[in-house]
Each structure stands twice: as structure tokens, then as C-alpha cells.
């Protein structure tokens, strides 16, 4: 949230992914010309239907995958491969099953701080396990002896323990039941607010995104998906799950998101509505602020009159 430095941490320019067609015809374009920035300390969620390529975008940011074209740069340097300044939490936990929970965290810490003594590594790892509510013996268990929620906690502890500049979360709660998900969301938000961690997270859950994010990027449907909108969540922090639904901004934001996902994400990717987003940042909208739509729709570059008329009905309806 705090932006001491005005240059964004991460800049994504015209990111495009195409798959060559097997019979040599037109290649399949999953997404094209995705442009967005992530600022330091910001918590950004990305939402879109399956097949829009959001996982690919995250993997490109992680350096595990490559795009067909476009540039991803972090602090001005292009990302060319995986690195310790970017931590990743995968949906399927990705813990090494032959190691205990503590050893899994230590594995990351040792890689990040090779000069540390074993005790330093151990203490640092244990501290981060405690931050997500593990410890008192459960750190000695192997992943197979932990519940799904506990495994994901270990995974989050490992990611935070290496103190990356950017934390990438690929639907981290997707495989968890609703109750566990709620608890771990709370833990994530607690750990995050105690740090200046920048987070980029994929989710399918609108309420989760509103609870966690400073900003939500909305992707239209694939093929020919793109990052269509950047929705600012104008709800003050600290946010609590129980209180947040009473905030006057909550339902306008939620309706806006749901409206996008149910209707407009599909319309936007139909051939006749598709617009060229090359070098264009997504439209920034503030559905949580009351008042006229135009007043809170900011589009730094290019000027607003570049937007097709269909995009003027952007803000959500009141409940």
C-alpha cells in the first residue's frame, strides 16, 4: 500500500501467448497484449475464467514459462528465468514429500541465505512456520501427515521465509474447503500486513479477492483474452471478513466483478468487440466509490476517448 518509490516494481508490456496450430493453420492466441504494472507493497489479484491464460501469466512472472512476445521486467530488468527474488506458492502446495514441514521451509531458506548457520536457518524457518500457526510438533510432520490447509500454510511459510520481492500465489486456496480457506486467508492477510511484501495472486473467488486485494485485474475470456480492467478496492484496511460485507463499497465492487465475469468477460473477447490493447493499460475503475462513473474512471494513457462506447457501462449496479 505504501508507495515510497513511484516506479512500479513490475511492468508487464504487451504480453502475448500463442500456441502454433498442429495442422499449420492459424495459431491459437490464448491472450494478447496484456499490459499492467504492480507497485511495491501492493496486493494484486487476477481473476478470469479458465483458459484465459492467467496461470501462464503467473508462470511467466515466476520465470517458469515463456511468453510468445512481450516483456516482463522487474525493477527495470527483464525477467529471464526463475529466481529467489520471486517466491511462488502453487495450488498443489509443491512441498517435497520426503521432508518434514520444517525441512521444507529450511530448504528454501538455505537456498536464499547460503551463508547462514544451520541454527540461523532453522530458527528463521521455525519463526515463519509459527507465523502461519504451525509449530509445537507439527513442524516435524511430513506433508502426507498434514491436512491440505496445513500443507498450504507450510507452503506460504516457505514463500514468506525467503523474503522475496514479489510473491506469486497460483490459486493457493483452490483445493481447500471453505472454512479452512477463510482461516488461511486471515493468516495470509496478517502475515502480509506485517511485511512490505508485494503479492500477485490468481483466484477464482470474488469474495476472497475483495478481502485480500488492493487491486483486482480482470481478464476477458480466452482465446484472445486480455487484461481488460483494473478494479481498485476502495475498502479501508485492516479488513476483516465479518465486517467487510457491511462496508458500503463492498456490494458495488462485488456486483461489478460478478457482472464482468458473467457477462462482459465473454462479450469483450467476441471478435466484434475486441479492441487492440497494444501498449494500452487496462481501464482503472473504482466501483466502490459512489458518484458518477466517469469521475472515478481514470485512464492515464492513452486518453479516455480511445475507449469504445461499450465500455462506458463499467461500474456495477447497486444491490
Amino acid at each position, binding site marked *: 500500500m505504501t508507495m515510497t518509490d513511484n516506479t512500479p516494481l513490475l511492468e508487464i508490456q504487451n504480453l502475448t501467448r500463442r500456441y502454433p496450430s498442429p495442422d499449420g493453420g492459424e495459431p491459437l492466441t490464448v491472450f494478447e497484449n496484456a499490459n499492467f504494472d504492480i507497485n511495491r507493497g501492493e496486493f494484486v489479484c487476477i481473476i478470469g475464467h479458465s483458459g484465459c491464460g492467467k496461470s501462464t501469466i503467473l508462470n511467466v512472472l515466476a520465470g517458469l514459462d515463456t511468453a510468445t512476445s512481450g516483456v516482463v521486467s522487474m525493477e527495470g530488468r527483464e525477467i529471464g528465468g*526463475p*529466481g529467489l527474488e520471486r517466491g*511462488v506458492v502453487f495450488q498443489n502446495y*509443491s512441498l*517435497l514429500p*520426503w521432508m518434514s514441514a520444517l525441512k521444507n521451509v529450511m530448504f528454501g531458506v538455505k*537456498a536464499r541465505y547460503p551463508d547462514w548457520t544451520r541454527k540461523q536457518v532453522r530458527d528463521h524457518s521455525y519463526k515463519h512456520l509459527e507465523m502461519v500457526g504451525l509449530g509445537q510438533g507439527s513442524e516435524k510432520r511430513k506433508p502426507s501427515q498434514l491436512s491440505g490447509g496445513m500443507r498450504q500454510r507450510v507452503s506460504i511459510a516457505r514463500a514468506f521465509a525467503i523474503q522475496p520481492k514479489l510473491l506469486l500465489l497460483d490459486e493457493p486456496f483452490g483445493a481447500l474447503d471453505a472454512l479452512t480457506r477463510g482461516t488461511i486467508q486471515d493468516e495470509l492477510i496478517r502475515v502480509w500486513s506485517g511485511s512490505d511484501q508485494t503479492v500477485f495472486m490468481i483466484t477464482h473467488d470474488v469474495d476472497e479477492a475483495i478481502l485480500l486485494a488492493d487491486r483486482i485485474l480482470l481478464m476477458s475470456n480466452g482465446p484472445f483474452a486480455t487484461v481488460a480492467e483494473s478494479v481498485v478496492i476502495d475498502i479501508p484496511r485492516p479488513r476483516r471478513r465479518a465486517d467487510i460485507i457491511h462496508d458500503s463499497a463492498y456490494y458495488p465492487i462485488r456486483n461489478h466483478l460478478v457482472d464482468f465475469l458473467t457477462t462482459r468477460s465473454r462479450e469483450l473477447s467476441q471478435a466484434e468487440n475486441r479492441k487492440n490493447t497494444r501498449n494500452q493499460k487496462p481501464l482503472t475503475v473504482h466501483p466502490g466509490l459512489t458518484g458518477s462513473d466517469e469521475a472515478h474512471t481514470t485512464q492515464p494513457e492513452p486518453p479516455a476517448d480511445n475507449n469504445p462506447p461499450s465500455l462506458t457501462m463499467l461500474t456495477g449496479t447497486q444491490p
Partner: protein
Amino acid sequence: MIASRYKAPLLSVLLLLSLLGIWEALTPAVKSAEDMTEYELLMGGASEEARVPPPSAIIVKAFEELSNPVYDNGPNDKGIGIQIAYSLYRVLTGYLLAALLALPIGFLIGMSPLAYKTLDPFIQVLRPISPLAWMPLALFIIQDSEASAIFVIFICSIWPMLINTAFGVANVRKDWINVARTHELGNLRTALSVILPAAAPTILTGMRISIGIAWLVIVAAEMLVGGTGIGYYVWNEWNNLDLTSVIFSILVIGVVGMLLDALFARVQSAVQYQE
């Protein structure tokens, strides 16, 4: 609970005892030497010559042999312990040499599709060759029967280890490799701290299959090269027409093979993990 735990072992013992009882009962009684005519004695009790000895005779023989396992009365009379030791020495030497070659090459094949495609035709042709088919060539080239036996063990134990290592390494979950990549682990560190433990159960399975095959093959190899070892012992006792010793040594081969397998099963369960 206790009853169900002991049920299977109890039935095993009962089955063994009844089979031995049937075997014993089917064996005709041996005429004592006093009852035989001089001619019968000269012919070694001719009509019953080819009889299979009863289990009681084998138990007596086993007791004799096992109470003094390491005596050495010259090339044709060595204790069972010495013969087993010779066989184990050959098996373990050939097996370790095979492991030294198979594990690194298997790793390479598993990690590099190019290496896999290059070496696959060779493996596919060499693998189905019966290890004993190499024997004449080995004897001619190595010119030493001892080393040739070890070579035969080497060549038969290499394939399961090689193939299983390659398979295990190639099938390490992509997620775990990604964990190594996102933590900037170098190739060697990734191989040792992620791929090796991940593939260890599969590799150990291959090693366990290999030791089993090596123990099968050593008996046949020693029958060919002669001199020492449990395989030679079996064949030597057959030439002596001492079927009691033959059956006793067959049992010993089985028990040692079982112990070798149990040893590897232990190591295997130590590296096993649950996803």
C-alpha cells in the same frame, strides 16, 4: 486380534508340516545294508537308487552342514558357509560394479531425452540377452573364469537398475523440479537434493530386482565355471549323486536369496515417501 495376527504364520507352518509328512510317507523305507545281498550292495541298492531322499534325511544333513559351515578339505569338500561366501562375493562385486555404471547413466538418460533416444536402441538389444550367453565371450576375452562369472553378474544386474533409474528420474514431478528452479538451485544441487530423493523409491525397486536376478544367475554361472560357490556345490553334489546335499543346497540358495531381498526391502522402505 492376536489370533488374526498369528493365523497366517500358523497356517504356513501347518502346510509345511503336512507337505513334509506326505513327502516322508511317500518315500519307501531304505533297506539296511545287512538285508541286502552282496550283489545288491555292489549295485548300491539298485532298484531304489534313484529315490529322492525323505525330508528327515535332509534335516539331518542340514544339521551336519550348518554345525560346521566353514571347513575346507580341498577343492571338492568345502563347508556350505565357504561356498555361500564365494557366491556372495561374486554377486556383490558384479552388482556393485553394475550399480556404479547404471546409476549415473540412468540419471543421464532420465534427465536428457537426447541421451535416452541415443542409448535406447543399445539397451533394447542388449537387455534381452541371457546373461549366460555372454559367458563364452567373457571367458575368451577376460581369460579368467572367476572374473567371467563376475562379468556375467555385472551384465545381468545392470539393466533393471539402469531402466528404473532412468524411469524414476524422468518421472520426477514437474512441481518439485519447479521448486528447485524457483529456489535457484544449480543442476548438481537439484539432482542431489530433489531428483535423487524423489526417484529413490523407483531406483531402489530396480536395485532390488537386480539383486534378485544376480542371485538367480550366479548359480547357473558357477555351474559353468566350476571351482567354488554354491552353484558349483549343487552341481558337484549331483555328480556325487548325493541328492540330499542337492536338496539341502537348493534350500540354502532360497534362504540366502530371501535374506538379500529382505535387506533391500528394508532400504527401500527407508527411502519410501508418501505423496
